[in-house]
């Protein structure tokens, strides 16, 4: 009988440690989807790379969802790969940079890096678009809204398709 309970506890602990899917985190799921969908409406400068690289910098809120979702998917004719970085120096050549950095200075450094290397920068941080980020995702009143800094995109030689712009709040003035 005791042995049975030990087995039960062991099985339970094994379950606890196992990385189950991020449960019912709808916002994360939507964010993961939006990254690829945004990318399909943009035109980046020609790159030598044959891969479409999505990099998450700092905390990864998606678990394994990004890897699973984009396995086998193609954006702009290129297979998608997901990379993870903890600081700007690790970003390298990417096509889309999802920024979760909470430190404003570090976040600004990531924005500047993206602008310099023609990377589509995306974040949920408040004030992100006005500070030079290209797409800001907001969850307001339980719905997704986006703010696009079109000027910043153009400055980085990134063209954004009209269908995406038509659904966004667009900043057309001088980019930071």
């Amino acid at each position, binding site marked *: 009988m005791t042995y049975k309970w030990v*087995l039960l506890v062991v099985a339970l602990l094994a379950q606890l440690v196992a990385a189950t899917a991020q*449960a*019912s985190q709808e916002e994360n799921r939507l964010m993961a989807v939006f990254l690829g969908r945004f990318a399909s409406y943009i035109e980046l400068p020609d790159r030598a790379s044959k891969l479409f690289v999505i990099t998450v910098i700092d905390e990864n809120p998606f678990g394994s969802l990004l890897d699973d979702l984009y396995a086998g998917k193609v954006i702009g004719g290129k297979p998608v790969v997901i990379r993870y970085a903890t600081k700007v120096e690790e970003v390298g050549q990417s096509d889309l940079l999802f920024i979760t950095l909470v430190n404003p200075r570090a976040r600004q450094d990531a924005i500047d890096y993206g602008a310099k290397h023609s990377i589509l920068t995306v974040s949920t941080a408040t004030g992100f678009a006005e500070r030079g980020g290209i797409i800001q995702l907001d969850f307001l009143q339980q719905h997704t809204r986006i703010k696009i800094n079109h000027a910043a995109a153009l400055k980085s030689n990134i063209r954004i398709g009209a269908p995406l712009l038509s659904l966004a709040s667009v900043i057309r003035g001088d980019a930071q």
Partner: protein
Amino acid sequence: MRTVAIALTSLFLGASVSAQEKSLQQANDYYQKSLNELFNIETPAKAEVGSRTGAREALESEVPIDVITAAQLESSGFTELSKALMKLVPGFNSPRPTGHDGTDHSPPFTLRGLNPDQVLVLVNGKRLHQSSLLNVNISVGRGTSGVDINTIPLRSIERIEVLRDGAAAQYGSDAIAGIINIILKGYGQDSRASVSYGRTSQGDGVVRQADVFYSVPLKNDGFVNLTVEGRDRGRTNRAGPDSRFGNAIDHLIGETDAQDGQLAFNAEVAAEALTIYAHGLLDRRASSAGALYRLPTDARNNPVLYPNGFLPMMEPKISDYSLSAGVRGVSEGNVRWDLSLTRGRNDYHFYVSNTHNDSLGNGSPTSFDSGATAYTQNIVNLDLAKKIGELNLAGGAEVRHENYQISRGELASYVLGTASTIAGAQGFPGFMPENEVDASRSNKALYVDARYDVSRALSVEGAARFENYSDFGSTLDKKLALAYRPHEDVLMRASTSTGFRAPSLSQAYYTSTVSTLSSADATFRQAGTFAVNHPVSVALGAQALRPEKSKHQTVGVVYQPTSGFSVSADFFSADIADRIMLTGNIVDTVSPQVKAILKQYGVQSARYFTNAIATETQGLDIRLNFRHSFEDHSKLKVVASYHRDRTMITDVYPLASILGSQTVTAVLNDTTQSFIETAQPADGYKLWTQYEAGAWRSTLNLNRVGSYYYFNGSRFGAKLTTDLDVALRLSKTVEVALGGNNVFNVLPDKFTYSSNLFVSGSGIIQYPPISPFGYNGAFYYVRLKLVL
């Protein structure tokens, strides 16, 4: 044996794989949707309350949290927050008292059958001050000072988070029944204006309301939001005939006539690395209600001034404001910090009119300034938080200073003149100079809150809070909460915590007396409520008030197979010791010792607050949420809930032995016991349904409140009320709505006994003033909304 192990392991691993696949499948489904469809997906409500480690989905929380949206508040049809929450939050009770002096004008509310002062109210996470009004009459919440949430304009609110668990270990005093966190509209809100008009089916209780919410966007997603609201609510009167006076309707039994002017602002200015923020609320209310009618032959009447008798009118003016300002940022080490100042004040000024001071004879004034109570709190708070791997660590420090004042009324409002022995303004005698109070205290708190995600399936949260109060000493409270997800669709949660409620300053220091002529020795004496530290209270055995101490347990489960459907069940228990109550009137017939004490201090009768009882509350909450978008883009939302609670007195602390046979009955009798145990509905369910198609949006809200008992044992049966709101969007900027609350005109049971002239099914007060949905009957309204 081996087979069992393999089976179990397979089951768990199978569930894990299935969970991953399900989540991925959902994401892949979304990936196939058009951008428009993606933007139309409604995400689950998030809540900040309950953990200092950041907002998260309410259904993911270790403790049960309800989120009420601005759209739900609007579609409730109510213009006062307490009434809207009564219809939307299970276990929330807000009766409409009548004939209860100050309580009529600032009605208290309760959560989970506990007291008004056992609910902590926050605005944007900052503590909102309590009212200075102490409810001393026979009403729900007797002996408490609660928060007047009707001072908050509805249109300034983005959402309301209701935490249904004890949380004093995180937030300090008062968070025993739970926390109501009111989040004001912030970034990204449309400016709007609305007007509404409504009245009861009997043509009274006319409500005229107008509001403007105006949002000014600032750089870097900063904003300044301003809400201005005016509300004029006419009185209702459901008084029955007065058989003493030709069956005349000479009383006012119903809701007060009240005018509120309200202002709210919420602002954030985003600087380079800092965010400066502030929010504030202001309410000015003038209100009017009747006391009991004085017949022409009543000894308290002066036939020269009032040949037909008179109805004293209580007409307080209430001012309430709060202001919070702070700055927050993130350090180089990724420590999130937030430093804030909060100030709040409630002034409750008592005026009476259409009355007189009988002892001043024919020359008595007919209106009086009866004095005021005021409560002020100032808070300095520092919050810190940092994420270290899977550990979310938060902590902080807080200093709070409170002040409570009672100011005397004008001389004529309390003086005992020579024309008779009946002193003071009829209806509400003024506070006397001896009643004046200016009492303060301060407390300091240190707290820590940590949540550790052991795995994606298991999180553990622990919290501890140390507080030191200048009046009663120190407390240390702890909380442990666990959330475990055995399957992606299922969340199991449990929490255990200790808590406390500091005695309010009003309970410790409230003093209100009148002069009266002793029939025993023809000397003038004081009668009324005395502060706990007043010599007569001390001589009668009063002791310094101790904090109420509580222990809480909550166990629950959430089942959420899809993002659009969830059902949850949570069991809770709360044991509260040292609950503070007001004694009954202690008079000189109690015992020879009491007689001697009262004579020594020149007192006819006295009452005071004391730690009186221990209680146990147990209950159950069941929730169901469903939302669905149809192919034709119409949407259906359903929120169903059931709540049940039961409070039992488990211990009674006898008063001093000099009270003889009344050591228990002086504080606990049938009346006061019923207000602890049975005067609030033991259960209730709600079914809120909204269907939106094209330009139309219809909301149907069914509410059933369970039975309850009034002080003399009368039972009032369960009732079902129906609210309906139909809104039509005429253009992108204009919407009209028609609706009704309690459209089938359901009334509470009438009193069944007839021996009492005032309170009976055919008497003056025919319906229970503690009815959770009032006794006005149906109310119909029209609303016009403009997007600016």
